[in-house]
């Protein structure tokens, strides 16, 4: 069995088939892109993997379990983390606190220990604070630790989202349009960051992106989605030449090379 696998996943919203018969297998340590025109169902695929949407049909295999019916928090606890297309930080909390939240689900304490301020609980809190600080330092956000998350610059907010997702300790990281709204320099930095995450943290990365230069330069394998159906899969070079992909993006009136 592969590292992560979706088999014949169907998501229906009423009469609309948002994702129709989608299958994909990811190997450990791969860097895979998911592209497709607007409304193709890319984010729905991510929402299905992360438990925000339960698929109408199909299975999602991860770590030897079928996680298709898992609620979102259990999916995260099982080692899949994600970021959001529209940034969803805890705006009124500090950058450090944003990361510290990621350690809550794995904390072995209880509320009575917290309310009485027991030394065991304070020890755990200090440990989480220390880990979060180190984590922020590694991702180049250390100097912003005490800033309010909502006051960060756009690129930093995207970076913090990734940092926060990584802090949950995932083995598979889903990035939903990480380069959206970034300038060319920020995009180059982001690509370096994603490679670093894959190489240093040993995390498999699956990402949605519209910036073709970014996707083609970064991903080893690309899956193309159109109207909820997978229309192509291959290396960046193969995808660029695929006639179906060109049609999906540019319309059928366009003749490749013509």
């Amino acid at each position: 069995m592969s590292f992560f696998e979706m088999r014949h996943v169907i998501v229906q919203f009423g009469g609309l088939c948002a994702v129709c018969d989608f299958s994909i297998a990811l190997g450990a340590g791969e860097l895979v892109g998911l592209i497709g025109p607007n409304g193709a169902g890319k984010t729905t695929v991510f929402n299905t993997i992360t438990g925000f949407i339960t698929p109408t049909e199909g299975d999602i295999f991860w770590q030897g379990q079928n996680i298709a019916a898992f609620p979102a928090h259990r999916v995260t606890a099982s080692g899949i983390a994600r970021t959001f297309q529209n940034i969803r930080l805890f705006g009124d909390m500090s950058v450090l606190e944003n990361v510290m939240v990621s350690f809550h689900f794995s904390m072995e304490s209880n509320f009575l220990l917290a309310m009485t301020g027991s030394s065991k609980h304070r020890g755990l809190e200090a440990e989480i604070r220390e880990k979060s600080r180190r984590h922020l330092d590694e991702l180049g956000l250390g100097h912003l630790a005490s800033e309010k998350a909502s006051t960060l610059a756009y690129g930093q907010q995207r970076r913090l989202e990734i940092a926060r997702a990584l802090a949950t300790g995932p083995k598979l990281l889903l990035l939903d349009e990480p380069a959206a709204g970034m300038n060319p320099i920020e995009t180059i930095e982001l690509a370096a960051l994603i490679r670093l995450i894959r190489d240093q943290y040993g995390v498999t990365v699956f990402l949605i992106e519209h910036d073709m230069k970014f996707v083609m330069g970064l991903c080893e394998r690309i899956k193309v989605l159109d109207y909820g159906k997978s229309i192509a899969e291959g290396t960046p070079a193969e995808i660029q030449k695929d006639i179906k992909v060109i049609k999906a993006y540019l319309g059928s009136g366009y003749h490749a090379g013509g």
Partner: protein
Amino acid sequence: MSDFRGPAGAAQIQGNLTDRQKTMLNAAALLCVLGILALFNQYGSEYHVRILNNMAIFVTLAVSYNLVNGVCGILHLGPNAFVAIGAYTSALLTMSPAEKQLNFIINQLIWPLSVVQAPFALSLVAAGVMAALFAFMISFPVFRVRGDYLAIVTFGFGEVVRVLCNAAQSLTNGPLGLKNLEPYTNLWWSWGIAILTIVSITKLINSSYGRAMKAIREDETAARAMGIDPFRPLLLAFLISAFFSGIAGGLLVHLITTVSPTLFIFTLTFNLLIIIVVGGLGSTTGAVVGAMLFAWGGEALRIVENPVDLGIIVIPGIPGMRMVVFSLILMLVIIFAGHGIFGRREFNWEQLARFLSRGGKRVGSP
């Protein structure tokens, strides 16, 4: 925090206090409060002691209500139910069987309750536990919804409890209420509970559990993606809030020595909402200050109802005038401090030290 440990003065100017210093300051503040209470207990008039008791009860209620509404960002409109349940539980436990016979003239009190009697402390614990049990029961329907829907559901449960207090005559004595309770509540009880509430809830808010609650308030979807099951922190906040509200209910009825269903109408919830909004939604400091202002202001504003002698003419006192002034003050607060007095800020010694060193010595700011 830096490793540099300068003299105390230098540390204060920089506004960095060590944990040890903060603990000392907290202890000193606690001693001050206890000293003031002892003074009032010894020399204060009955009127002043009563206001202080009221203050403490409202502080307890506001701080626990703020945990759900301010910290979790849930618009919960049923704390009057928790207070009512705590009040009746505690009252029925402290009354002597003979007193109960005298009170329940139309319907007899049901059996086990008619013969039991418990000390005040135990009755308060029971009040908290019963309120928390009720909160647990209603939490499943309540947390299936969010926003306005949740507000309506909790408001509904608040009303249900009030109506039950009226109707369940063999349990609550209906509209007649319970009279002649022992006036057990004194400054030590009321402020003891208030301080316990403040300290334990503050510790909870500053812990990982509090961060999870705030995360849900800020963005529930993101919180779920970070591995948090929203139901658990919300339930925790709800239960703890109910527990302390129930205890406050017990304190309240042993202060005024009677219980009747009219005590727990929606106005009680509404007053608590005003307190935490004026103090600053999400700020425990705000809840404390708001509750104290509310309990004291209600009495202090009686001045505006007195006749005014201007020398030439005498304006007669208008009963109810204080409510008009009260509303005016409320509007001013909302207009000039939209997020309440404290916003989401909390009191902390470091800021006080910075503030004092800047104001006193004109240093620190460039």
